[in-house]
């Protein structure tokens, strides 16, 4: 015998024709002899009819055009190396690379070997490399603005991981810059030769890449993991202090961006108070945790502030494999280009080498950042006024 309570539980599913044959049968049997449930069903049918009659809104004017612009911008960024915001004196190297970069998803065989040789040792000894780079190009690590430039590039590579950044920076990027200013070479004959050798190598490299792709070789898997937690409190300063301490005791670290950009020189405070944006009603803190530590940290927050005031938000895991491999390819290409220039006796070469090194540095920082993010969870904690 079906009870009224059972029937009412199933009313929507019945109206939607989502009951099994036997459920349906017992439902109908009950309805046939129970007037009050029959009324309920009629009400439900009305509700459904009203909901379904709600009009669909038309797309806003200009929606498709705006979307088209955004997609084109993303597409341009995914296929181009990056933007150098100066007028090209001679686009040679850059054009070639831009065309090579189009369509690259997995790394080619030769590149893979260079890469592993380069990075397995390269990143460990980064501090000394960094010292040189910092001396010649202080902007790359000293100015926050430079960091954010690198991040807007990251973002274009599908790295909108933390949700702070809207898609605006990307959409606002001038298309002229994207399509023109890829890179700069002005080393006369040397540049011409370089360009030709790049072009000549290209078809070979592509074949090797395809082989690599088919055999599943050399692809480096990467994931971006982020999470958000919200703590509601009456005293933002005190609560932020507690969050900071809990993060520290649970092995929370400075976000990868600080590690990557500051290299060996991490200020002592950065591990404890990162990315604070103080407002009257909210403070944001960001830490990087190993996954197990993240769970422990979330549990500790719950214990400290009470479950009612701690909201554990979305844990987002995003596949970054393609992104990191494109970046690695680019880095390898820069190496090759720098090497060639170094073998050149052109008087202007040092200037270009520095420029390219600086660009490569930015790419390497992104690679390292993705790698770090692959192993850890970047957690944003919002401390909100109750």
């Amino acid at each position, binding site marked *: 015998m079906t009870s009224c309570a059972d029937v*009412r*539980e*199933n*009313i*929507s*599913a019945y109206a*939607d024709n*989502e009951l099994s044959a036997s459920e349906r049968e017992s439902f109908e049997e009950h309805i046939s002899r129970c007037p009050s449930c029959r009324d309920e069903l009629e*009400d*439900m049918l*009305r*509700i*459904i*009819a*009203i*909901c*379904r*009659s*709600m*009009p*669909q*809104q*038309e*797309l*806003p004017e200009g*929606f*498709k055009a*705006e*979307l*088209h612009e*955004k*997609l*084109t911008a*993303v*597409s341009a960024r*995914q*296929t181009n190396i990056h933007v150098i915001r100066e007028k090209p004196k001679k686009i040679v190297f850059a054009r070639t690379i831009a065309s090579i970069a*189009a*369509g690259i*998803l997995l790394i080619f065989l030769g590149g893979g070997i260079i890469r592993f040789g380069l990075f397995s040792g390269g990143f460990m000894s980064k501090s000394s490399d960094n010292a040189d780079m910092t001396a010649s190009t202080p902007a790359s690590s000293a100015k926050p603005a430079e960091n954010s430039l690198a991040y807007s590039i990251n973002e274009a590579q*599908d790295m*909108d991981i933390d*949700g702070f950044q*809207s*898609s605006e920076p990307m959409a606002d990027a001038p298309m002229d810059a994207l399509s023109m200013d890829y890179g700069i070479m002005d080393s006369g004959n040397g540049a011409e030769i370089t360009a030709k050798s790049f072009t000549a190598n290209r078809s070979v490299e592509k074949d090797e890449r395809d082989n690599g792709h088919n055999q599943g070789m050399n692809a480096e898997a990467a994931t971006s993991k982020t999470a*958000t937690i*919200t703590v509601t409190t009456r005293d933002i300063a005190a609560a932020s202090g507690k969050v900071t301490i809990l993060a520290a005791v649970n092995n929370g670290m400075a976000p990868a961006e600080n590690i990557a950009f500051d290299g060996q020189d991490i200020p002592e405070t950065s591990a404890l108070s990162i990315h604070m944006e103080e407002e009257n*009603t*909210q403070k944001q803190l960001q830490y990087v945790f190993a996954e197990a530590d993240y769970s422990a940290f979330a549990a500790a927050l719950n214990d400290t502030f009470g479950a009612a005031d701690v*909201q554990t*938000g*979305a844990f987002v895991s*995003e*596949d970054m*494999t*393609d992104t990191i491999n494109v970046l690695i390819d680019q880095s390898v290409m820069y190496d090759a280009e720098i090497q060639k220039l170094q073998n050149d006796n052109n008087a202007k070469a040092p200037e270009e080498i520095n420029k390219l090194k600086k660009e490569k540095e930015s790419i390497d920082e992104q690679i390292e950042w993705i790698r770090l993010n692959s192993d850890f969870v970047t957690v944003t904690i*919002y401390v*909100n006024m109750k």
Partner: protein
Amino acid sequence: MEHSEQILLEKAKSGDVAAFEELIDSYQKKVFNLALRIIGNYDDAADLAQETFVRIYKAISNFKEQSSFSTWVYRITTNVCLDELRRRKNKKVVSLDEDIHMNDGDMKRQVMSEDPGPDEAAEREEVRRVVNDAINKLSEDLRVVITLRDLQGMSYEEIAKTLDLPGGTVKSRINRARLALKKVLLSERELLFEGYVK
């Protein structure tokens, strides 16, 4: 999946913007309306719908085709919108008054254009306004399922896949959402409710 959709999908995966746009053409209005229903504000819904498609474009090469493309599209849409809602809760920027105002304006334009005669139009418009407000008052969990079911016309199974929820949860949420709507409608506009759709 249709043959042509499959071809477009392959092209889109290789970065072809035109193919991607053709592929999503039939989804744009639905995604926008889903976003509108979840977020409750016309301009924000437009922004979120755009963000949804940009994300889909960026991620499409990773789409494994284990679910249907449409399920995947709606899943990303709901994720983008629910993320935004959470972010807003954190930042406390939601303005209910403004949202309702926006929706009223939009409703009005829409209904007038259907032109069913002045009285009936006014009545229908009123019902829709009330229903619209009532849906907006539902908790986001209930609002999402009822939108997917009654505005997007998805089956329970599709909703379960889209939201990654057990079938039983979908079923009970839909039922709860409708009961909640009924309660709001009856308490606020009993006559109107009685007089509407038979």
